[in-house]
Structures are given as C-alpha cells and as structure tokens.
C-alpha cells in the first residue's frame, strides 16, 4: 500500500482533472458534463480510490478539454467536494472548487410525474438550488441531495 495513489490514473498532458468526487459518482460526473467518449477525447476514470478526505473517492481526467467554471458548477450537486485542476503540459495551472449555482436547468428531471415540466410543453425542467438539495421551479417538489443522482436527465 505504499504506491502513489495518483499513479492509479495516468497523468494527462493537457485537459481537466476532476478530483475528490464522492466514491461511485464518476460516471454521473461524466454524464452531467455530457462526456460520453463519442467525440474521441481520452477519458480516464478512477473509482473508489482511497482518500484521506473522503475515505473513497473517484477521479475523472479528461484529455484535451479545459472545462469552464460554469460547466463544472453543476457537479456541486452530486460531488460537492470536487476540485477542478486545469492541466497544461503536465502542470496544474489552475485549481478551483465547484461552486453551487443558484439554479440548474435541463440537467435534472422532476421526479413528480404529474409536474408540467414532464408534459409535452416547450420548457426545460428548472430547479432552484437549496443548501441540501434542489427544488422544482414549477411544482415545488424538493429533490434531496442524495436523490439528485437518481434524477439526472442526461441523454
């Protein structure tokens, strides 16, 4: 157990490393970012890597793409402890934490099947972010933090 944890996932030359993702959420992180590998980018994922801070954490590395703050903020809903590292030429040039957005739109679907956002109307589901979950702007249904991952609307 003396090996460097970082070596479990290979280093990247240029791109974004999303670290300190709650264990088991890496695939949801990719889904939320709309990364499915079809655009040819190199993506590596480490799951359930031992971590001092989280016990077990996931790491996601995306080669050749620098994610913007607004792109990653939505991750705060499923991975509030995540840190974002922008890498250029193998060096971390920028490090930041995810910040909770005030609202999220089109990313989570409302679990209330009778909500107007689930009807065939020209709107996207929209939620106001609370301290411990999100609330549907249409029907007021509250989705707790631990339920967000199960209601992701990513296709």
């Amino acid at each position, binding site marked *: 157990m003396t090996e460097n944890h970082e070596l479990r996932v290979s280093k990247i030359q240029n791109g974004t490393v999303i670290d300190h993702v709650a264990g088991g959420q890496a695939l949801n992180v990719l889904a939320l970012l709309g990364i499915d590998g079809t655009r040819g980018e190199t993506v590596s994922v480490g799951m359930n890597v031992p971590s001092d801070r989280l016990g077990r954490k996931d790491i996601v590395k995306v080669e050749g793409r620098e994610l913007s703050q607004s792109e990653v903020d939505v991750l705060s809903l499923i991975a509030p402890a995540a840190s974002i590292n922008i890498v250029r030429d193998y060096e971390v040039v920028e490090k930041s934490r995810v910040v909770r957005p005030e609202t999220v739109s089109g990313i989570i679907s409302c679990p209330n099947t009778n909500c107007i*956002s689930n009807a065939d109307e020209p709107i996207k589901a929209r939620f106001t972010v609370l301290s411990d979950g999100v609330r549907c702007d249409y029907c007021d*249904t509250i989705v707790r933090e631990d339920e967000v991952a199960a209601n992701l609307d990513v296709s």
Partner: protein
Amino acid sequence: MRQDHLISAADLSREDIEAVLDHAAEIDANPAAFRQRHAGKVLGLCFFEPSTRTRMSFDTAMKRLGGQTVDMGPVESSSVKKGETLADTVRVVEGYADSLVLRHPSEGAAQMASEFVDVPLINAGDGAGQHPSQTLLDLYTIRENAGLDDLTIGIMGDLKYGRTVHSLAEALTNFDARQHFVSPESLRLPRNVRYDLHASGSQVKEHTELDEVLPQLDVLYVTRIQRERFPDENEYRKVAGEYQIDMETLEAASDDLTIMHPLPRVDEISSDIDETDHAKYFEQAHNGIPVRMALLDILLSQDR
C-alpha cells in the same frame, strides 16, 4: 402586490394579503361603488379540469366589477383535445383578455403559463399544488370570525394532495398562527410545504387524531379525503371515517370554534352541524365574490 401574477400563496407577503382582505371588506360594504370599475375589460377563464364553483365565482366577480368574461369551454371541445400545448393555448387566449384565470390538472401549470403571458394570470388550482385565491377567501373568513393573529387552527383531512391546504398553510406563516395538521399517516403534508413551514419558523404540529387538539382550536378547517387516494374501498372507509365530524365530536370543542371547508363536502361534516354557529363554510364560499373582486381589481389596476 409585488408581482403581476398570483401563482402560489408562498409569493404573498402579509402586506399583500392584508391589502386584498382590506379591499375585499371595502367592496363587501359597498359593492355598488365598484359596479363600473372594470367596464370594457375581459377576463379569460381557462379551466382544463371540471370546476363549476371556482369558475362561477370568478365569472361573477368579474361581472360585478362591470367587466366581461370569455370561457374556453370544456377541454373536450377545445384545441387542447387536438394536442395543443398549454403554452400555446395561453398565448392565444391572452390576446382575447386583460387577465387570465387558469385551472389545470398538472402541478406547476400556472407557473409555466405565467412565463408565456404578459397579462396577469391567477392560479385557480394546479393539480395537487396550490389554490391561492381560495386561500385569500379562507383568510378573509378566518379574519372575520376568529382573527388572524393569536390564532390556533386545525387543518384536517387530505393534507398531501389538498391544494387548498398547501396554500393556506403557507399563507398562515405570515401571521401569529399555531397550525395543527390532522391526517392519516399516508396523507401528511408533502415535503415542500413542510420545508417552508420549518424555514418560516412557524409553530407547527402534526397529529393523527383530532381529539388531541380539538379543545384548543379557534378554527377547524376540514377537507375531503378522496376515495382514489386509497388502494381499496375498505381501507378508504376505515380511514375516512376517522376524519368526519358530527355533533358528538363537537362536545369537546370550544363554544367559539369556527368550522370551515372549501366545499364541496361529501360526508366529512354531518349536516346537523350546518345549523350551529360553528358552521361558516357557506359564508366562506360567499366570501369568494368580494375577495376575488378585490384581487381582480388590484391585478387589473396595476401599472404594467
């Protein structure tokens, strides 16, 4: 009011509520003075769900202000049947009217519709969501009979799906009211209403039996428990039977207890109570006219 639309009771401040109730009292005292107030204006009635009562109440209120109404008629005979979206329907009807009233079976329908129109829109019920104009007339009735501050109120029945309950509970957080919620375990308040009550710091208690709180109540607000909320007839009968009141129930109540119900009732309140001074549900229904006149007058008079 701070906003052009009335979508949820949670949007109403104490000042908003008092402005409507005070204006309703003014109208109630001298309705003739408002007879021509909105002559030439048209109110659009969009009811996507059967409701003779609320529709008639808005229709009458608008006409007593000198205005007129247009009604989209039953859903079966409208464009909705042909698959038109609600967003399209309200944008079309907006062109015919100075204000819209919307009743729809989906939660959030009024919020969505309000994002597509510029005229004031009133939510007259969105599924199991909200029914804020009912709340204003409920508050008017409570104020007349028991007062809105230092109030102890029991709200009983279907608290989970009852939109009048959700709106009333949210609005009462603006006042010094102790709220007791009485319902079967399976029909307790939904998470979002609970969240708001908690966040407002209101005094709230939940009960499964009325006797636990009846003696201390100033107002008992009864709602109907519907058959379709239960998997089978026996279960429904057993549960619903526990939340009905009759003369015997009232032996434990205060002499000044005010009993309210948004109507229609089935058998939640036995008819012998109608003759007592406790019964205020018909007065409550009648209050719908001055209160909706006041609401329409305020919304139609706003500079936009």
